[in-house]
C-alpha cells in the first residue's frame, strides 16, 4: 500500500509538469489553432537559464527565477515575430511544421550555448526529504505541485475574468468574428506565445533541480505534454491539467507495477488511443472541420 502511495506521489509530481506543458499547448492552440511542437524546448530553456543564473551564477532565487521565465518569454516572442507572424496567412499544417523547425533550432542553439552535458541545479528549499505517513517527499516536489496548481488557478481566472483572457477565447472560437467586433488578433497571438513559453519556462525551472538541465530534455517532455493535452482536450485548459495529472499517475503506476521499461510507452499508447477513440479528448468539445 505504501508503494502505491509512493508511486502516486511520484506520478502527481510528474503529472504537474505535464499539466503545465499541456497548458502551454492549449494556450497557443486556442489562439491560433497551431500545435506548437517547440513547446518542450521552452521547458528546456527555463531549466537551462535556471542552471546558469541560480546554479552557476548564484543570483538570488527570485531574481534567477524571474530572469529564467522572462528570458524564455522573450524567446517565445522572438519565435512568434520571426517564425509565425511572417507565415500567418499560411495554412495550419505549414505553421505546425514551422514550429518543428523552431524546436530543432532552439535545441541546436542550446547545445552551442550550454554544451551537451547535463547541468546540475540546486534545489530551491534544501535537499532533505521528509516523511509523511509512509511516503517520502522532497521539498522540490511539493514546490512543483504548488506551482502548477497556482499557475492553473491563475490562468483560469485570467481566461474567465479578465478582458484579455476573454478576448483570447473569442479568437480561438472564431477569429473572423473576433475581428469583426474589434478584437485585434495579432497582438493576442503574440501574447499567447509569450504566455505559453513563460509557463513552460516556469515548469522547466521548477523541475530542473530534480531532472538536471540537459539541452535535449525538451523533446520527450514536449511530446508527453502534447499527449496530455490531447488526452484532456486541446481546447480546454482544465482538460490540459486533468490530462497531465492522469498521464503522470498512469505512467508512474505502469512503471511501478508493470515494468519500468514501458514507462515512456504509456504516454504514446494513451495518445494513440485518444486519437482513435475520442479525438476531442476527455473534456474537449467535439469539432468537425475540413482541413
Amino acid at each position, binding site marked *: 500500500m505504501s508503494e502505491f502511495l509512493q508511486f502516486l506521489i511520484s506520478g502527481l509530481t510528474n503529472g504537474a509538469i505535464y499539466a503545465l506543458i499541456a497548458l502551454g499547448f492549449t494556450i497557443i492552440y486556442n489562439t491560433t489553432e497551431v500545435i506548437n511542437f517547440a513547446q518542450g524546448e521552452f521547458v528546456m530553456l527555463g531549466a537551462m537559464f535556471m542552471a546558469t543564473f541560480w546554479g552557476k551564477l548564484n543570483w538570488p532565487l527570485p531574481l534567477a527565477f524571474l530572469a529564467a521565465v522572462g528570458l524564455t518569454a522573450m524567446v517565445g516572442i522572438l519565435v512568434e515575430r520571426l517564425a509565425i507572424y511572417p507565415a500567418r496567412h499560411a495554412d495550419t499544417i505549414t505553421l505546425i511544421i514551422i514550429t518543428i523547425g523552431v524546436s530543432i533550432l532552439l535545441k541546436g542553439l542550446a547545445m552551442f550555448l550550454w554544451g551537451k552535458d547535463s547541468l546540475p541545479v540546486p534545489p530551491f528549499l534544501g535537499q532533505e526529504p521528509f516523511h509523511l505517513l509512509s511516503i517520502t517527499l*522532497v521539498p522540490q516536489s511539493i514546490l512543483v505541485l504548488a506551482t502548477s496548481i497556482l499557475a492553473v488557478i491563475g490562468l483560469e481566472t485570467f481566461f474567465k475574468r479578465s478582458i484579455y483572457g476573454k478576448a483570447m477565447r473569442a479568437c480561438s472560437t472564431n477569429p473572423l468574428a473576433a475581428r469583426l467586433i474589434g478584437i485585434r488578433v495579432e497582438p493576442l497571438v503574440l501574447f499567447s506565445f509569450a504566455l505559453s513559453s513563460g509557463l513552460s519556462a516556469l515548469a522547466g525551472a521548477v523541475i530542473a533541480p*530534480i531532472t*538536471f538541465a540537459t539541452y*535535449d530534455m525538451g523533446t520527450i517532455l514536449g511530446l508527453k505534454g502534447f499527449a496530455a493535452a490531447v488526452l484532456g482536450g486541446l481546447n480546454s485548459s482544465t482538460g490540459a491539467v486533468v490530462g497531465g495529472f492522469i498521464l503522470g499517475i498512469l505512467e508512474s503506476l505502469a512503471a*511501478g507495477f508493470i515494468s*519500468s*521499461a514501458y*514507462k515512456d510507452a504509456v504516454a504514446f499508447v494513451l495518445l494513440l488511443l485518444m486519437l482513435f477513440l475520442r479525438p476531442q479528448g476527455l473534456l474537449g468539445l467535439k469539432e468537425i472541420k475540413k482541413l
Partner: protein
Amino acid sequence: MKKWSLLLVFIFWSSASLVLAAKPYKIGALFSITGPTSFIGEPERNTLVMLIEKINKAGGINGHPLQAIIYDTEGDETNTLKKATKLIIQDKVLAIIGPSRTGTTLALIPFVERYKVPLISCAAGIKIVEPVRPWVFKTAQSDRLAVKKLYAYCKRHGIKRIAIITVSNGFGQSGREELKHLAPEYGLEIVADEIFGPKDVDMSPQLIRIRAKEPDAVICWGTNPGPAIVAKNMRQLGMKQPLFMSHGVASKRFIELAGKASEGVILPAGKILVAQQLPKSDPQRALLLRYLAEYKARYGKEPLTFGGHAYDALLLLKQALEKAGADRDKIRQALEHAHIVGIHGIFRMSPKDHNGLDPKEAFVLVRIQHGKWVMVKD
C-alpha cells in the same frame, strides 16, 4: 617561359618535400567528442593529440611521423560507421583507435573484420573481446574485472543479498550480464533486477520496488546522468543501503550531479583517480603522475580516467608500429604480443586475450568522501 618556370618550381618543391619527410604513419581515431558521452571522448581525443605531439617531437616512430585523423562519433552507432568508412576507404589508415563506447564499438566490429583493419577500442564492454576476434583489441578494463573487484569487496564485508539497477544501453546491459553471471561465485543473491532508460529522469518506481525487497546493498551500473539520479532518488526515498556504482561514473561530473547523494558511494576506478594515494612501490605511479601533470599543463584540467584508455591504446599501437611498420596485418600480429606498462594497468596481450589486463592492477576501489575520491584500502 612562365609556364616552364612554374613547372620547374613545382617539381623542385614536391621532390624536396618527398626527400625531407619519411612517409607518415596514418592512424585513425574515433571518439565521442560530442554527445551524451562527450566527457569520455573529449579527454581521449585530447590525450591522443598531446601524446602524438610528444612522439613526433622525439622523432616519430623509427623516423616516421605519426599522423592521426580523428573523427567525432557523437556517441552514435550510425555516425560511427560512416566515419569509420571514411577512415578506412578514403583516409586509408593503418589502424583505428577507439571508439569510446561499447555500443559503437560493437557496431563497428563486423566492419573492421571485413576490411581487415586493426581496431583498439577504448570501451569497456567485455563482448568486445569475447570471443576473441583477430582484428579487435581493447584497452579499457572489462566490466567483468570491475564486477569481480566489487563483488570481492561485498563478500569480504558480509553482504549477501544485492539489488542491481542497470541502464538499458550496451554498457549497462553488459555490466548486468556480468553481475548476474558472477554473483553465485561470490555467494551473492540478486533479489531485485531493475532497468532504466539512459534519458530517464526519475528512477523512483524501480527503487521503490527494490526497497520493498530489502537488499543488503544496491549496485547501479551505467554512465551519467542516470546513476546520479539513482543516487539522489535513493536518498530521497530514505534508503540506507550502501550504494555501489560502476567505473562508468568515475568522473567529477557524477559528484557534481549527485551532490550530497554521492557521499559514501563506492566504485571501481582506474588508479589514475587516486594516483597520489598509491604506494611508492606501484610500477604505474610514476607514469600516472607524469600523465596527469602533462595533461593539466596542456589543457588546464584533469584528464579523467577515460583519457588513459586512449593513452594506453596509442602506447600499444606505437609498440606495434615500431615492430611491424606500415602493414595492417603485421600490426595486428604485433599487437597480439604487445606488453606495456600503461595508465590503466600492465597490458600483456596474447592471441587468446585481447584486453591483456589482470584484475589486480586494472582497478582500485574508491569511495567518495566529502566530494573527493579516497582509495579504499584492501
